[in-house]
């Protein structure tokens, strides 16, 4: 029955798992009032001792009371071992409370492990630390969200200065702006994603000096909402704006991702030189140069200071899978322009006519076509593409362009079935 359940639980914790079961630990684990946890512990000790007097159980008690010391009455609160309990009780003039503090299998030499147990369970329950307490305070209300959100930002930015968060938030205001926290949950796609979004990044991003910009611009393109807009991008300036907005909105990537980007981006600069991009990319070019340099600089710093973080970031990145990414997409960093060329978007032949109307508005019509025509084979679908155009410049292609075969149909549809 439910009554006996807790006895079995405690038995399991103490005997099988060899844990130190403090009243606080039990209270959080079983979700009961602290006083009930103390009573449960006492009950367990009594029963266990009754049925098996040789049980290997060591108990610590909490004793509190008053004592006359140096002329004044001093209130003492002490955690004592069972063997000292009576001695301490006898010294106190008035005993205010006695209860079981903890039960464990082994005898404790000092009270250090008790603190550790309590600290660990508290750490995992910080947000509702007074839920099972005997005192509830009506005045302890969290501050209004407007005030608390600023503190949230502080929490989230481990690595980056909050100013970057500010910048991000500024960008998000004019577009689709998922709440900061949600954005932070979305992981950046990868380097390729970075390239993809860079293609569509505007000067606006160039103006922002923060690292965040560079990373998020790139990663934003990988996000699902961004995808649709990237396609629009090729259809007009308005679409470009929208894309930019979407990219901006997705810029609130976790700051950690920003750090992770630089080392990855190191290889990118040589591939990602946006020189190949035309018109819209002209603006983007200075952006990208800036970003490239920024990234290079950042990389230098990072290697010195934050390599550890970067590595952990890298690890995080590798595990990231965007929802819309299909299995053929991966985050392999191409290590030479040749690879890019090989993997450059090569829509199947049926799709090559469709790109024609597209190139009108597309940033890089001729180069795209040429690269499309050149390379047919494509095993892997990359998030973002770089390609080599006629002049030998490496340019970017948005992600959707790099999608695999399955995308071609979509492209065809969107282009009004011009296949």
């Amino acid at each position, binding site marked *: 029955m439910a009554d006996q359940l807790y006895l079995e639980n405690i038995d399991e914790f103490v005997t099988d798992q060899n844990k130190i079961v403090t009243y606080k630990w039990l209270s959080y684990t079983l979700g009961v009032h602290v006083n009930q946890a103390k009573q449960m512990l006492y009950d367990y000790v009594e029963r266990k001792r009754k049925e098996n007097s040789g049980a290997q159980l060591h108990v610590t008690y909490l004793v509190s009371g008053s004592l006359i010391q140096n002329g004044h009455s*001093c209130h003492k609160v002490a955690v004592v071992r069972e063997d000292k309990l009576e001695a301490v009780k006898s010294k106190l003039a008035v005993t205010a409370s006695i209860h079981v503090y903890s039960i464990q299998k082994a005898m404790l030499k000092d009270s250090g492990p008790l603190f550790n147990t309590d600290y660990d369970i508290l750490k995992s329950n910080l947000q509702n630390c007074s839920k099972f307490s005997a005192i509830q305070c009506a005045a302890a209300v969290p501050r209004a969200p407007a005030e*608390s959100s600023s503190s949230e930002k502080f929490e989230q930015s481990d690595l980056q200065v909050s100013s970057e968060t500010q910048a991000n938030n500024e960008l998000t205001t004019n577009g689709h702006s998922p709440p900061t926290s949600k954005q932070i949950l979305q992981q950046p796609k990868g380097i390729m994603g970075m390239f993809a979004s860079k293609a569509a990044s505007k000067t606006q991003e160039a103006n922002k000096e923060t690292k965040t910009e560079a990373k998020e611009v790139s990663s934003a393109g990988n996000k699902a909402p961004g995808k649709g807009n990237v396609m629009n991008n090729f259809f007009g300036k308005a679409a470009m704006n929208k894309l930019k907005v979407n990219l901006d909105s997705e810029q609130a990537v976790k700051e950690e991702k920003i750090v992770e980007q630089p080392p990855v981006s190191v290889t990118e600069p040589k591939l990602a030189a946006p020189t190949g991009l035309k018109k819209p990319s002209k603006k983007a070019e200075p952006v990208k140069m800036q970003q490239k340099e920024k990234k290079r600089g950042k990389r230098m710093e990072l290697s010195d200071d934050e390599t550890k973080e970067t590595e952990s970031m890298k690890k995080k990145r590798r595990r990231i899978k965007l929802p819309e990414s299909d299995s053929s997409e991966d985050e392999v960093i191409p290590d030479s322009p040749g690879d890019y060329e090989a993997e450059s978007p090569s829509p199947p032949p049926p799709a090559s006519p469709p790109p024609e109307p597209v190139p009108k508005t597309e940033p890089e019509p001729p180069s795209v076509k040429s690269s499309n025509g050149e390379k047919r084979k494509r095993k892997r679908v990359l998030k973002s593409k770089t390609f080599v155009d006629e002049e030998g410049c490496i340019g970017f292609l948005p992600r959707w362009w790099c999608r695999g075969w399955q995308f071609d149909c979509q492209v065809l549809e969107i282009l009004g079935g011009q296949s």
Partner: protein
Amino acid sequence: MFSEQAAQRAHTLLSPPSASNATFARVPVSMYTNSSQPFRLGERSFSRQYAHIYATRLIQMRPFLVSRAKQHWGAGVQIKKLCELQPGEKCCVVGTLFKAMPLQPSILREISEEHNLLPQPPRSKYIHPDDELVLEDELQRIKLEGTIDVCKLVTGTVLAVLGSVRDTGKFLVEDHCFAELAPQEPAPCLDTDRFVLLVSGLGLGGGGGESLLGTQLLVDVVTGQLGDEGEQCSAAHVSRVILAGNLLSHNTQSRDSINKAKYLTKKTQAASVEAVKMLDEILLQLSASVPVDVMPGEFDPTNYTLPQQPLHPCMFPLATAYSTLQLVTNPYQATIDGVRFLGTSGQNVSDIFRYSSMEDHLEILEWTLRIRHISPTAPDTLGCYPFYKTDPFIFPECPHVYFCGNTPSFGSKIFRGPEDQRVLLVAVPDFSSTQTACLVNLRSLACQPISFSGFGAEEEDLGGLGLDP
């Protein structure tokens, strides 16, 4: 007292689980006002000299001293300025004290090349039998001798001396008096017991594990997790917790990284970062349950000069979510449930301790109350902001509870003033070494120490609890 009230309820916890468990509501905040506005600094400008603070101190204190002198030595006593003194004439002079101490660390002496001195090692007291007292007023200064306790007094005290000028040019003192206590509002009558918990010197980041359990026990008692129902009920009557400074340990202030080569310190983090995170968690637990006022101390990350400004809320992302957390200045002045509190984190008292023969921190606390100035040694030996309009450390009125933090041991006393003022003086001990905090009962204006302990391998009997016979 806390213990007696706690013991009134039956012990229920050494029994099988009961059907329901009592939950107590924290006593609501009935009245609280923070009166620390004089200690808040807005725009700070350090281009001024410190002479102005002494000038304004003397100007503000003069009327109090004149009235006290008249009370002590009769209304007919002549009160003169130093420039008006006639040799041999008995009169009273009001001025600021200066104590010339040969052992006082002097930066000029240290860097002077002709002396070729090595920096003096820090001492616990810098007093010396050869110390001399000099009285200064607005225009002149004069050496003092006579019935005046040179060892006890410190620089910056404003007092009135009765005596006459000798032919040697020194002033022979027959008697002296201080400004004594300021007027006091009557204390309110409360119908229920309400407690304020005073803690100082948590000393986080200090590396000592023993005090961590004590800190956790303290938090558990206040938040109502520890103890029997009676104790929890009493703890629910704690209406406020004041953390009086030194939340971080002085170990967190180590400046080794400045002297080491950059490549050795690149990946290291300042010790205070970890300590502040721990402090944030403790403050979160506390503020989820009780209003907390956090005062900075000597080793805390805020400005060094008095008055210390509040710690920045960005350091406590978890705890600032609660409106019960208040970050306040040092010194701190507030009215809690009608009872006026005034206190510091202890820098003023420990500085006077260094330059005076007084040994007991509680005695020094009482003495600062009597001279009507929180920190007379500022700015001479204690860093202080160069005020020029007013000296905010002069008591405008007498508090009901006057405390100072980070003393070596607990001390508490009721002090009675000449106009029936009644002040509870509390010397809050350093928690990291004594594991003791103070519970002030607002109804009876009494203070009870509350101490915490765990058990250790090397303890025999109850030495750790202080329960030795």
